[in-house]
Every structure is written in structure tokens, then in C-alpha cells.
């Protein structure tokens, strides 16, 4: 019965969004986090890095869409589409980040930070609206993506500050990073707890479970290192390690969410028809 296109109900990962789409979530979230970190730290130039990361993420998506020269059509449906809303926030964010760096204006920095939070929230809701993917439509993916973006941004902010010598990491940026890492770990724990209600296919659950075990250990390590670095921010390797883990583990998390755990909603029938017209229990092929 099977032809070129399968007639069985097995489904796999969604085939449309690849590393380019994942990059938008990774770079966009991190960029938004950097902008927030720049506002909190009163850093003039760092916001440009955040805007550049967001721009790079959008560029990745531009290379993925089927009709890139129509990209401006993405502004047409902000009434309901979180992708439209993301696209709407982006230019405002770029303008305010550029203005903040140009004029060294704290007000514009905070405006850019507010828009960055709106941007990462739009991204989180965008993924959550992908209702064909049970791992995405888990409502707790929203706080997870927001917390991860802010933690990644803080990590990159700490790294960039140390690398450029723009800012010796004082105590409280490390406290901020520690808090955000803890928030992300909590959000991921909460996300995983809600998964059984989402009819997530078994393969995704098993992968998530394996990832969760490693990620739990990494989170504990990252938080422990960050606390140690908080105790003495002058110990550069500790600061750098916590910052790298904050950004790197967030990217791995998002890549996994967008690509690896993106198993499609299985077909399901609540009843089947047995021989002779009798009704029999239904089926939900795992895929």
C-alpha cells in the first residue's frame, strides 16, 4: 500500500524549520538578553552587540523562507501572528539601541531593554503557537525561552565586558547572572513537568528525559560556578566559565527544542471500526 509518500501514520520531526530558524531563537534571545544586561549595567556600547545578534538571527530566517523578497509581507498580520509582532518590534528595537549608543542615553537604553523583553517574549509565544508540535505548545515553554534568553544575554554581557575591558565584572552583574541561571533551571524543570499533559510523542519525551539529566547537572554546575564567581568576581576563569555555560547551554537548549524535540502531533482516532461494524478502541500511533 505504501507509495512514494507514506500511508502509515508515523511522523517525525517537523521538516521545515532547520538550523536557520533555530539560530533566530538562539541569537535573537541572546541579543535581547544582552540589551537588557546593557541597560541594567549602564553600558553604552554593549547594546549594539545585542542588536547585531538579533539582526543576525533575522538574517538567518530570511535565508530560510521560501520567498525572501516578499519578507516585508510579514508585517501584515500583527493582529494575531506572533511572527508579525516579532517583526514589528525589531526595527523599533534597532532604532532605540542605536540611539542609546549614539547619544549615551539611559532612557533609550531602558527603552531598548523593554523592547528586547517584548522581542524575546514574541519569540517565545511564536514557538508556543506552533500547535502542531506538542513540545512547543507547552505553555511553560514561554517562561523557559524568556528566562533562557535573558540568562544567555547576561552571560554574553559578562564575557564581552571582560573581553573588551569595558567593565571589570563587579559583584552585582554576577549576582544577576546567578539569578537568571537559577530562573532558567527552574523554568526548564517546570516545562518538563508539564510535558505529560501535552501528548508529546514518546521519542521526544525520551530525548527530553536524557537531555534533562545532563542539563540538570550542567545547571547545578553553572549555578555553583556563578556563586563562586559572585564570591570573588576577580577570579576571571570562574566568571568566564559561568558566562560561557550560561550562553552555551541556552543555545543547546533552544536548538534542541526547535529541531530535536520537534516531533509532530501524532494522528489519533478515538475509536476504530472492527469487522462486522463493531466499535473497537482507538489508536494513537507514536510516530
Amino acid at each position: 500500500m505504501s507509495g512514494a509518500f507514506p500511508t502509515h501514520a508515523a511522523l517525525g520531526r517537523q521538516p521545515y524549520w532547520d538550523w536557520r530558524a533555530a539560530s533566530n531563537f538562539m541569537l535573537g534571545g541572546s541579543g535581547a538578553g544582552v540589551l537588557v544586561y546593557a541597560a541594567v549595567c549602564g553600558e553604552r556600547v554593549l547594546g549594539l552587540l545585542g542588536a547585531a545578534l538579533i539582526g543576525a538571527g533575522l538574517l538567518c530566517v530570511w535565508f530560510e523562507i521560501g520567498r525572501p523578497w516578499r519578507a516585508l509581507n510579514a508585517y501584515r498580520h500583527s493582529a494575531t501572528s506572533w511572527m508579525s509582532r516579532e517583526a514589528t518590534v525589531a526595527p523599533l528595537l534597532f532604532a532605540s539601541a542605536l540611539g542609546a549608543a549614539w547619544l549615551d542615553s539611559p532612557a533609550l537604553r531602558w527603552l531598548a531593554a523593554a523592547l528586547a523583553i517584548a522581542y524575546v517574549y514574541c519569540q517565545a509565544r511564536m514557538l508556543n503557537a506552533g500547535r502542531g508540535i506538542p513540545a512547543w505548545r507547552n505553555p511553560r515553554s514561554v517562561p523557559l525561552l524568556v528566562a533562557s534568553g535573558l540568562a544567555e544575554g547576561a552571560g554574553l554581557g559578562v564575557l564581552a565586558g571582560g573581553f573588551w575591558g569595558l567593565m571589570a565584572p563587579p559583584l552585582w552583574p554576577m549576582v544577576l547572572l546567578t539569578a537568571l541561571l537559577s530562573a532558567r533551571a527552574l523554568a526548564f524543570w517546570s516545562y518538563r513537568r508539564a510535558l505529560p499533559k501535552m501528548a508529546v510523542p514518546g521519542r521526544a519525551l525520551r530525548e527530553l528525559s536524557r537531555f534533562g539529566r545532563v542539563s540538570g547537572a550542567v545547571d547545578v554546575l553553572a549555578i555553583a560556578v556563578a556563586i563562586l564567581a559572585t564570591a570573588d568576581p576577580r577570579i576571571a576563569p570562574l566568571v568566564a566559565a559561568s558566562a560561557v555555560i550560561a550562553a552555551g547551554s541556552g543555545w543547546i537548549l533552544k536548538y534542541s527544542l526547535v529541531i530535536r524535540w520537534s516531533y509532530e502531533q501524532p494522528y489519533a482516532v478515538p475509536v476504530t471500526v472492527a469487522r462486522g461494524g463493531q466499535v473497537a478502541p482507538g489508536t494513537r500511533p507514536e510516530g
Partner: protein
Amino acid sequence: MTRYVMVVDLRRCIGCQTCTAACKVANGTPPGVQWRRVLDLETGSYPDVRRTFLPVSCMHCGNPPCLAACPTGATFKHEDGRVGIRYDLCIGCAYCATACPYHQRFRVTRQSFAYGSEPTPEEAYKFDSARLGVSSKCTFCSDRIDLARHTGRVPGVDPEVTPACVNSCIAGALHFGDRDDPTSNVSRLLEQNRHFRMHEELGTDPGVYYLYAEGDRT
């Protein structure tokens, strides 16, 4: 009001895929794209094994997740419940494909043919460059439904204005019509048979009903 729906009688479907072939011919979909197909589900264990043929297509939902997701407004709803796509607006982001819990969105970015690098005469005739790089799906054969408005003929009753899959079904398993018309064929079938809709719990209000037994409603 009018709400066009499809009714699938699971007791009648024999999994012959004639509807699949009819859809491909009528709509000229490229290899790998099937706006309609029939799933072959095996359940149970020996000796109590069942085989279910499950025709699937776009569900033309009353509350379509693809429509809310679409950033361009390319996805739209007709007043009669059909969900359509304006190919000239679509940017091919495939967001709708991830939003659809029925896997009924397709995107192809390059032209391909069933037999090698050259199109068959049929493929050449049906090729539509507007569908490259954008999202596509079952339209309930919209050109035929639109024709009904001008001719006064009745979709689901008159073959000229009925989706190709329904016309082609050799087992009488597929039915099409207006659910809001209590005298329509689909309304009678739904009244007289127990039925379900797939993934109703997601709040999509799908427009494809599956009949599975005689009796009142669900």
C-alpha cells in the same frame, strides 16, 4: 450561513487511494506532496488485529491555528468555512506548517517531476510557478465550490461543484456538503451516525467528520 464540511465513513473506506490520485490529478501537486491521502493504521495484537483506513486532508478548521500563525494574512477563511491561501502574499516561512496539528501544509521550493527531469504533459499543463516556495494545502477544490455560486448547483450533490476526491471515491466513503443546512447529505449523515473529529481537544473545530457507527451523534 454555510459551513462546508467533509464527512468520511470509516466503515466504507477500503484504502484504495483513488481519492489520493484524483486529488493529485485535479490539483497538479508535485511528487512528495499529497493534499489528501489515506493512512493505513494497524492496531491490536494477534489474533485481535484491526486495520483502519483513515483519509486525511486539511480539516478546514473553524478555528484554524494556521490562520492565527500566518504573519502575512496569506491564509484566510472563506465565509463558508473553507480555509484558503493567497499564494501571492505567502512568504514561505512554513510557520503555518508547524501550527497545523494535522500536518496538512506543504512547501516545495523547486520544481520536480514524477518521471525524471522532464515534466509529463499533464505536469507541464498543471504546473503553477506561484506555488513554488510558498505554503500549499487542500482547498476543498475551491475552484469548483466557487463555480457553484455562479451556476446555482449544489456542492456535494452535483459532481461539477464537488471536490475531486469525493467524486472519485469508489466506496461512497467521502461526502461533502453544508453542515448548516439541515437537509443536506452531510447533516443527515451526522444526524444518523456516531462520529468524531480528530484532535477536537485542541479547539480547532475541524471541518472533517469521521463516521464510525450507526446511532445518534457522538
